[in-house]
């Protein structure tokens, strides 16, 4: 039983081929966009790799780049086929390739869906990586004299300034870390010794944050030290003050940034998938039809179950494709007499 059977005259088939051609080119453009977005994501992840702990997230942009490229190639080929579909002599050239081509694109569409899924799993992995990475970076903020870590102060400062964020989850993260190096602490002062003694690990902790946490929209000059002490500053209440420092945590800020990129990629992928499905069904239609006379077109030749079964058998017999080719000229639907009819016109 054919699914959604529609009658197609030659002109309608031509129109269909034209639509398919346009869709193919839309897919090529979408493939290019996907490729460039994948490249952009790769560059952005590389830029911030100091802030991400060792997690394998590079596979996502690599896969997106590959998918983008393949989309371009497949759709370019599809466009060429459609262009030739209208001309009956050229169409016969492609008859051999049509079926494997459709199978390929079916797999490709599956890959695209898998890609979209991977983007979502990456979100969780990225959050983990950022959490660990930022914690490390903040811990080594003071180690500007140690090779391998000396750049982390600069990295964290520029990150907090650029993304308008402070700390990992919030500015209070800085209260739990010693971010002032011992080289700049006067060990002879009583106040310093008191602070060092007041916690178990001998760290110099204070309720202050680095300057890069300062909010430039604040009407008041930035308060960085003694943040929790209301009496230390005139007309200041730390519970209600929200414009003095950046309130957002850097993990959330970075995550939002990357999620934004992924959302654009997700949109591109869904457009690609939709167009792809439309294409495969339309190509099937064209494949079944006889180039010159009126014919039936349908979304699927048989019911869904039958189509699945036929596709499975095609996959199984892919290895033996050579034998089928020489026996039937590659296509079980047209035998030699009708091709010669197509050559010399319907009257002959």
């Amino acid at each position: 039983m054919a699914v959604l059977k529609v009658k197609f005259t030659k002109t309608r088939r031509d129109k269909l081929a034209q639509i398919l051609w346009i869709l193919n080119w839309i897919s090529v453009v979408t493939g290019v966009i996907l490729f460039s977005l994948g490249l952009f994501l790769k560059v952005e992840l590389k830029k911030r790799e100091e802030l991400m702990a060792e997690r394998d997230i590079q596979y996502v942009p690599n896969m997106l780049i590959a998918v983008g490229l393949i989309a371009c190639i497949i759709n370019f080929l599809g466009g060429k086929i459609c262009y030739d579909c209208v001309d009956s002599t050229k169409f016969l050239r492609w008859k051999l390739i049509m079926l494997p081509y459709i199978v390929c694109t079916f797999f490709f569409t599956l890959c695209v869906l898998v890609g979209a899924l991977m983007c979502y799993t990456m979100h969780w992995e990225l959050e983990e990586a950022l959490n660990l990475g930022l914690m490390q970076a903040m811990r080594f903020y003071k180690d500007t004299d140690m090779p391998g870590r000396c750049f982390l102060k600069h990295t964290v400062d520029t990150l907090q300034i650029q993304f308008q964020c402070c700390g990992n989850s919030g500015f209070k993260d800085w209260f739990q870390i010693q971010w002032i190096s011992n080289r700049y602490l006067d060990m002879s002062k009583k106040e310093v010794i008191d602070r060092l003694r007041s916690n178990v690990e001998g760290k110099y902790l204070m309720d202050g944050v680095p300057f890069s946490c300062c909010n430039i929209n604040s009407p008041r000059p930035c308060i960085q030290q003694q943040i929790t002490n209301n009496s230390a500053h005139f007309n200041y209440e730390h519970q209600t003050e929200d414009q003095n420092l950046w309130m957002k945590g850097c993990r959330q800020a970075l995550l939002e940034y990357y999620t934004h990129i992924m959302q654009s990629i997700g949109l591109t992928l869904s457009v690609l998938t939709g167009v792809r499905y439309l294409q495969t069904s339309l190509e099937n239609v064209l494949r079944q039809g006889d180039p010159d006379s009126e014919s039936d077109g349908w979304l699927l030749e048989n019911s869904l179950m039958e189509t699945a079964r036929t596709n499975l058998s095609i996959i199984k017999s892919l290895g033996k494709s050579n034998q089928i080719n020489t026996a039937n000229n590659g296509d079980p639907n047209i035998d030699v007499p009708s091709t010669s009819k197509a050559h010399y016109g319907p009257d002959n």
Partner: protein
Amino acid sequence: MALLKIKFSQQRRVRLAQGLWLLSWLAVMCGAFIFCLGVYLKIELLRRDEVMENTEIHVVPNLLMLVGLASIGANWVASRVCQDSLDASRFPRWKVLLLGWYAVAALLCCLLLAVVVLSYVLQGRLEESLKVGLRNGIRFYKDTDVPGRCFQKETIDRLQMEFRCCGNNNFKDWFEVQWVSNRYLDFTSQEVKDRIRSNVDGRYLLDGVPFSCCNPASPRPCLQNQLTDSRAHYNYEYQSEELNLYSRGCRQALTDYYMGLMNSTGPGVLSVILIQLSVLLSMRYLQTAVEGAMALETPEGESEGYILEKDVKATYADVKAKALDLLKFAQVDPASEAAGAEEGEKEAEATAKAATPPPAS
């Protein structure tokens, strides 16, 4: 003696027309490039509008945009002329326009040259404008509650962080200004009262700077207060410390930035001038060669192309004579009309005679 005479066969004329057509489309692209350059420069200047006191420097991008648009139009006309040049029936209608076109093209080249010169000359004015603008910005830094000035704090902070600079000439400018508003000063505290009393104007001055002056590349957490007091901070020497804050002044940073922009566009503008000049010269050669060919008995034959029909002195004398004739013609006395009419006819003949060589030149 014609100036820079070249012989043109029919084939050479065709090649000249084709080459000029391509060159004029290249010149159209160049015109678009100049326009976009002008727009970009204008946007960059407008972005920092708040720290500039006057808009004199805006003449550079305005001129660039004008010249860009005019150049696109003029060179498009040139390409149309090229297309019609080898067709004897369509070329004559362009003849009238060509003299005006030469004037416009020469004017465009002069304007572009003027732009290059202006961008160097106006550097001093830009610095002055920035000096006053930044001084105001720093003075009104604390006035975040005064309408019309409330944005100055954010502007100055952003500027200092983006351009990695501090203050007008250097960070010491902040020592001379009260940048902490009175709303945040505890007037019951002895320290505050002492400071306010210690200077004539009753301002709260301190040797500290805002956080936006802090240099993230410093190995040490930023020191913002008591900068001149070496004992106030451990292991700190005021005179030798150079990584703690940005050492450059914002006026210098902004001037360098804009001069850098204009200098990097200098070579581009100069090459556009060259292209425009070559279009002008080629058009002249094409015009004279085609007109020469049209005047021949065999239009397919060889003709001469030149820039000026006679040499420079003779052309100048001709132009002067024609101008004087026109003036005399305009001043003819209406009382002696009869004699004047005869004379007028003679004058008209003379001007007509004098007029026939000039159109060819």
